[in-house]
Every structure is written in C-alpha cells, then in structure tokens.
C-alpha cells in the first residue's frame, strides 16, 4: 500500500463528496423555496383578508428563501450544539474508565506505552485513554473536537486479544481520526442533515395540524394551499435528507480509508492493523459495542458490522485487502495463548479523576 498516495486519494474523494453534500443541501433549500414560492404565487388571486393586492413576486421568493434557510441553519446549529460535548464526557457515557499510570495492570501499561509511541509517530499530544471494561468485542474510538480535548477509547476485548503490533495499528487508526479532524467534520454533516430533517418535520406538523383545523371556517382554497405547502416541505425535506445521509455515509467511509492509510504511515507496518481487522472478523461478536450510547460514536469506531449504503465504514474484507493485497480471505482462529480475562484493572473505586 502506498500510504501517502492512498491518503491523498481519500482526501480528494472526501472533498468531492463534501461538495456534493453541499449541493444536496443547497438544492433542497432552493427546491423547497421555489415550490413554496410558486404555490404562494399561484394562489395570490385567492380572496384574502385585509387589503386585496397581491404581493410582489421577488418579495415572495426572497422571503420564502430566507425562511427556509433560517429553518435549516437553525436546525443544524441546534443539533451541533446538542452533540458538541467533550471527548471525556462521551467516553464516560459509554462506560469508559480513565486508564493512567496509577491503575494500569500489565496489559494497561502496554496500551499506555503504545498510545505514547503513536503520539510520537503522529506528532500529536498524548490523549487520555479510556477502557470500556464491559465490552469484550474488539473496537476503539476517538472522541473530542480538538487535538487538545481528544480522548481515545478502546474495548477491554481489544486490550486483551490484540498483540502489540495490532494494538499499534488500532491506536494509529484512531490518531488519524484525531489528526484529520474527522470528529468535527462529521458533527457538521450531522448538523446539516438535521436541518433538512427539520424541513420535513415542519411539513409533517403542518399536515397534522390540518386535522384539527378542518372544522374551522377556512375556505377551500386556503386549505388546499396549506396542504400543498405541507406536502412540499415533507417530501422535499425527507428526500433531501435521504440523499444527504447517503453522502454523509460515503464521506465517513472515505475517512476510514484515510485513517487506515495514515495508520500505515505512523506504524510503517500494514500487518498490525490488518491483523487487528482480521481479529475482528474472526470474533463471533466482531466489533460490536453493547453500550446503548454506542450509536453516538458509530462513525468514530474502528469497525462496524453493517454493510449497506448507509454504513459508516467500508466492508472489513475490502479494508484488509487494501492493507494486504495478497490476503487469502481467511480469518485466523483466536490464539490459544489468549490470556484469561484480566481482573477489573480499573474499578470504579480507583477512578478518582
């Protein structure tokens, strides 16, 4: 694998996809604006309360455009603010326990050492490390929105089942997510998708509210007008959201390839990360997380089990093949040397941070 070229390619594809994403958002906004404005203009001959003169065409377009934009931007900012939490808070919500020199056992020390090695290789500050003691699958995540605030989370299964080189590959993959700002990129995309969702929801609310308004003294034309606007918002909002989600998933998959390539740059050892991915493939539970809050970090995980168009990660086989072109497609069995489950190295009583 040529890791510099692979990284450049993934960055280029990300840029293309982000532009496409922007086009989807702008297209939805313009579409909603055009439809709503046309509906309003087509109905301007209807009798209305107050003065009878019809509104100016330009004014209608500008006003609806601003209104739609305000809804999308507002929805996006709201969602971003909701999700913008420090990495530590997120790691603790997943049940992570802060691992440090004071509470680390032999495996823990090895993990902390590997993290420091990868910090040197990537030139980043050493992040706080959180172990998820109840998770026996092999997985890891990075969280936090700046390099200073970033934390690295890893399952107890990964600490126990991976050897030193595999652990290096996994940790290097997560360092790449931190270095490339993938957490804040994803946060922004989630925010914009939510903005489009709000348009659809608005349409839904309008249509639903008609049920109660039906008995009122509205004229037939007015009612049809509101139904048309509600339907337009509902359909365009959800169609826009569908495509935005599709593109968002594609962006996320490119960032995974980028992180895999960067992990090879940091470790100069494709076998480490490939071995860790194979280990995930050979485990019955794979990399699944059991914590209910796991969906919050799905895009930042090392691996994910689903494989459809909305998957945030590329298929495991494809990733391994990119790292090891000659792979025979077989997952090695778990090593017999696998140590017994470690004692709870970091019980809640030792956690006094």
């Amino acid at each position, binding site marked *: 694998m040529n890791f510099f070229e692979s990284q450049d390619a993934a960055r280029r594809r990300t840029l293309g996809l982000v532009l496409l994403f922007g086009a989807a958002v702008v297209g939805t906004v313009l579409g909603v604006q055009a439809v709503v404005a046309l509906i309003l203009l087509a109905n301007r001959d209807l009798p209305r309360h107050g003065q009878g003169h019809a509104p100016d065409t330009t004014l209608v377009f500008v006003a609806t455009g601003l209104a739609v934009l305000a809804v999308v931007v507002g929805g996006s900012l709201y969602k971003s603010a909701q999700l913008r939490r420090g990495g530590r808070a997120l790691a603790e919500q997943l049940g992570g326990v802060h691992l440090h020199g004071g509470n680390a056992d*032999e495996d823990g*020390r*090895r993990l902390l*050492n*590997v993290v*420091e*090695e*990868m910090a*040197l*290789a*990537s*030139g980043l500050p050493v992040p706080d490390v959180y172990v998820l003691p109840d998770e026996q699958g092999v997985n890891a995540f990075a969280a936090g929105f700046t390099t200073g605030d970033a934390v690295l989370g890893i399952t107890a299964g990964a600490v126990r089942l991976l*050897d*030193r080189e595999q652990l*290096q590959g996994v940790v290097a993959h997560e360092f790449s997510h931190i270095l490339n700002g993938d957490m804040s990129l994803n946060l922004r995309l989630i925010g914009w998708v939510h903005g489009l969702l709000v348009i659809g929801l608005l349409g839904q609310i309008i249509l639903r509210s008609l049920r109660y308004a039906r008995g009122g003294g509205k004229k037939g034309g007015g009612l049809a007008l509101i139904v048309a606007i509600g339907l337009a918002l509902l359909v365009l909002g959800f169609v826009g959201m569908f495509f935005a989600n599709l593109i968002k998933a594609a962006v996320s998959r490119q960032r995974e390839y980028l992180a895999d390539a960067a992990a090879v*740059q*940091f470790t*100069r050892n494709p076998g480490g990360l490939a071995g860790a991915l194979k280990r995930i493939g050979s485990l019955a539970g794979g990399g699944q997380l059991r914590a209910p809050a796991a969906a919050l970090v799905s895009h930042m995980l090392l691996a994910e089990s689903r494989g459809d168009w909305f998957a945030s990660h590329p298929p495991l086989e494809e990733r391994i093949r990119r790292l090891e072109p000659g792979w025979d497609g077989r997952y090695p069995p778990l090593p017999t040397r696998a140590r017994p489950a470690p004692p709870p190295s970091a019980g809640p009583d030792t956690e006094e941070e």
Partner: protein
Amino acid sequence: MIALQVAIVALVLVVAWAVAIWNRLVTLRNRYANAFAQIDVQLKRRYDLIPNLVETAKGYLAHERETLQAVIAARGAALDSLRAAAAAPGTAAAMQGLAGAESALGAALGRVFALAERYPELKADVQMRRLAEELTSTENRVAFARQHYNDAATEYNTARQVFPASLLAGAFGHGTPAALLSYEPGIAAAPVLGLAT
C-alpha cells in the same frame, strides 16, 4: 483610476500570498525541529531505564556479571556520545559516534535478554517484565520519533521546493533543506526482547 485600483488589489494579493508562504515555512521548520528534540528525549529515557534493569537482573544473574557490566559500560559510552552529539548537533563525527555507541548498547542489551531466556525465574519476575515492556516501548519511541522527524523534514523540504514557494524560500531564510536521518541500526533497530509480548 481603474488601473491604480487593479494595481493595489494585485499588490495586496501578492503580499498575502508571500505572508502565507512565510508562515507555512516557519511552521513546518518548527515542527521538524521539535520532532528532532523528541528523539533526544527518548534516547535519554532509554539510558535511564538501563540501570534499573541491571539492578533487577543482578539478583538472578549472579554468575553473569561480565554481561551486566558490559551493558553498564555501553550505556555510559552511549550517554557520553549523546552529550557530545547534543553539543555539536549535525556534525558527522558526533552523529557517527552516537550511532556506534548505540549499536554497541543494543548488542549488549540483546545478550542480557538472550541470557534471561535461560533463567525462568528472571523471566517471570514482575519487575523484569515491566522493565522489558518499558524498554520495548522506548525502542519503539526512538524509532517512531525518528520516523516522525523524517516525515516532518520531508514535508518541510517539499514545501520549500514546490513552485511558487521555491521563488521565495531562499529569500525568507529557508535556503537549505532539512537533513533526513538515515537508517542507523544501532538507534533504529530494537533488540529482540523475548520477554515482552
């Protein structure tokens, strides 16, 4: 009038472009300088670990005093070379001396760990296992710090060689490329540590 306005806009653009190049070159140079400092830090960390290792092994390897003394001597020599290299960084003689001393130290350490294979109690010693892990990690850190230095130096060299930055690099005081560290077995290669997994 219009010609003057165009000239002013063009001037502002050129100045902004030059400032951007200046800042990028300074940033990249500081980054690789810092990367170099890290190598030094990690080498010292390694020298600090070795006396502990010898102290721990002494109890089990009473009959192997020569091997242990060789490690201590090699460590002293390497530390002296590092001081000499730090006093005159970049000089070929100092760097070569350091590389030689490092490879001697690596060989001496390798012999200790080969010996340890024959002493099961030593291999099982908790303190020894911990030190072996620390030494493995330190060897890795030295290697990764060197690798990061080379990555950073390459990025700096590329930034000052690409057009149009190449037009200004010399005038901005970035006339010489950063030297890459070549592979020196003594520093980069970790001895095989049978104890660490």
